[in-house]
């Protein structure tokens, strides 16, 4: 009986192709809007979290002072003893890299480029999740002796060397020249909008001797072990550094401990909320599409009163007529859902390309939208179907 009713419904839809198409237009647009919004939102979230993951999502940064950025506001820098203490006493820390950074101008032949030198060691690459595109990292001798060698970021390479392989060349920084031993794979913009690839990394000792002229360390980059709690690591770091820096209990920290996951959560949280909002707005249009279906079905019931009369006279049961109209509505709205999904796939692929976010097929939202559109058929089809099935066959047959 269900199969027969489906057949009847399909015939009725085919008989009124134009009207059927107009009926489902609302659903098509609604479904397409919901899926496109959510897919693009997911893509945006993904691209934000990718950027942050590229910073090392388990990275904790410790800087003196309460501000992030240059100038510690009078708070003392860290010493190498602090570095050792962190290495030895924070069990959750996997890699601890000291960083001394200086703004410099790097020169290669006729090109020069204002960039930042980070003095550190190989732990810098491990903690920051950096990978090499060419060359190598520092040798132990180079680190210990403070040799003039450097690993450059992709932006510096592009500005100074163009497309050339920089490994083996020498660049001038301030008064000394420095051999490029490696090049980092690009990471793109950081979550804060700065270019992470605009960097020259040198051994810590080299920078301390030749550029900063002191044994101080500007920053500690700490990567937290997989599975270890970042919050716990941050608490331990804070306690340890307060103790080492002799901060009284009622005084505020004169340093900050920040983790990228925090930034990541804040930023992806924003895009997630936006995605949800856009999805909700689109869902309203889906609802409006459902009301459109109800409208057309009600008109259809009135228009097809005679047909219903014929069916009832021929011996259709009330529930068969109910089912026919219900299935018509569900088939229509599901069809709308399918077309909407197809449309959304095309639109999201195109828009993702234009917006520069990755296209991620989200099966959940596609299935949910489809089921929702089918449900709309049931809900908004029921009332008109009920009305059709309840008609008196004699009156229905007499209807003009």
């Amino acid at each position, binding site marked *: *009986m269900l199969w*027969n009713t489906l*057949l*009847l419904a399909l*015939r009725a839809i085919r*008989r*009124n192709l134009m009207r059927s198409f107009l009926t489902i237009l609302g659903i098509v647009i609604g479904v397409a809007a919901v899926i496109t919004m959510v897919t693009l939102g997911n893509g945006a979230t993904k691209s934000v979290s990718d950027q942050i993951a590229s910073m090392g999502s388990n990275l904790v940064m410790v800087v003196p002072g309460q501000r992030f950025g240059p100038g510690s506001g009078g708070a003392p820098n860290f010493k190498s003893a602090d570095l050792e203490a962190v290495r030895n006493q924070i069990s959750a820390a996997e890699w601890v890299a000291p960083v001394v950074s200086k703004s410099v101008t790097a020169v290669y032949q006729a090109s020069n480029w204002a960039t930042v030198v980070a003095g550190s060691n190989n732990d810098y690459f491990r903690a920051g999740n950096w990978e090499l595109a060419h060359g190598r990292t520092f040798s132990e001798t180079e680190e210990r002796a403070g040799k003039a060698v450097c690993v450059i970021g992709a932006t510096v390479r592009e500005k100074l060397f163009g497309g050339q392989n920089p490994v083996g060349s020498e660049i001038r920084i301030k008064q000394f020249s420095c051999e490029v031993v490696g090049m980092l794979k690009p990471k793109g913009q950081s979550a804060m909008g700065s270019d992470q690839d605009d960097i020259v990394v040198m051994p810590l000792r080299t920078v301390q001797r030749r550029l900063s002229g002191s044994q101080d360390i500007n920053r500690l980059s700490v990567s937290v072990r997989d599975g270890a709690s970042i919050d716990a690591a941050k608490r331990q770091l804070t306690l340890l550094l307060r103790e080492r820096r002799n901060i009284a209990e009622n005084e505020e920290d004169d340093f900050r401990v920040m983790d990228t996951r925090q930034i990541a959560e804040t930023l992806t949280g924003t895009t997630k909320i936006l995605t949800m909002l856009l999805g909700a707005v689109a869902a309203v249009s889906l609802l409006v599409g459902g009301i459109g279906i109800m409208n057309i079905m009600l008109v259809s019931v009135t228009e097809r009163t*005679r*047909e219903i*009369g*014929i*069916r*009832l*006279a*021929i*011996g*259709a*049961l*009330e*529930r*068969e007529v109910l089912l026919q109209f219900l299935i018509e509505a569900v088939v229509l709205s599901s069809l709308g859902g399918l077309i909407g999904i197809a449309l959304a796939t095309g639109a999201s692929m195109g828009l993702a390309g234009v917006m520069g976010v990755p296209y991620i097929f989200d099966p959940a939202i596609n299935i949910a939208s489809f089921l929702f559109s089918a449900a709309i058929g049931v809900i908004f089809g029921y009332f008109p179907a009920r009305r059709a099935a309840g008609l008196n*066959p*004699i009156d229905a*047959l007499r209807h003009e």
Partner: protein
Amino acid sequence: MSDPALIRLSAVTKTYGQGPSAFQALKGIDLAIGQGEFVAIMGPSGSGKSTAMNILGCLDVPTDGSYEFQGVHVERLQRDERALLRRHFLGFVFQGFNLLARTTALENVELPLIYRGHDAGARHAAAREALRQVGLQGWEHHTPAELSGGQQQRVAIARAMVTSPLVLLADEPTGNLDTKTSREIMDLITSFNRDRGITVLMVTHEPDIAAFAGRVVRFVDGRVDSDHRQGEAA
């Protein structure tokens, strides 16, 4: 052969509305119709013949009195039970043809078979055969809009006959047709009655159409005014 009767109305009344505005369309009808009869129901408009037809067609129930169809008390049946009765034993032909628009002749004829649950193959075969019997071979894929009135009524007859019903109820089947076409339609209906023994109940107000029937029941003012059998129709 008409005892026990296929159809028996006993003291049937039908009242529309309630209170002072109530209108009694049938004022006590007794009527027995046997298997294989061809009965024409005549009468002026407002005489209650359409109301009686609706009750006979199980589309409506009497306000009072009883209607036995094959010994079953139709007045005691639920709406869906009456629908099943129509589905399995009755065929309808209307004055206005009442075919589904934008639907081919074949699909129109198949419609009652769909409700009977026949599979597609059996449906097509039976519908084609029914169309052939009404002389519409080759017109299977035409929609009502592409058919003449007479052809449309033939499709309607094929739709009524495709289930081989016990009773064919025809409500002014020739009301919208010219004289020549009316004759053809009546010949068709008569042949189903004569050759297949199908009981025919037909409402008409045209005496020459009623002349095809073996028995004429005349309604006047909600009562049976006369009921007589006539000799073999010409």
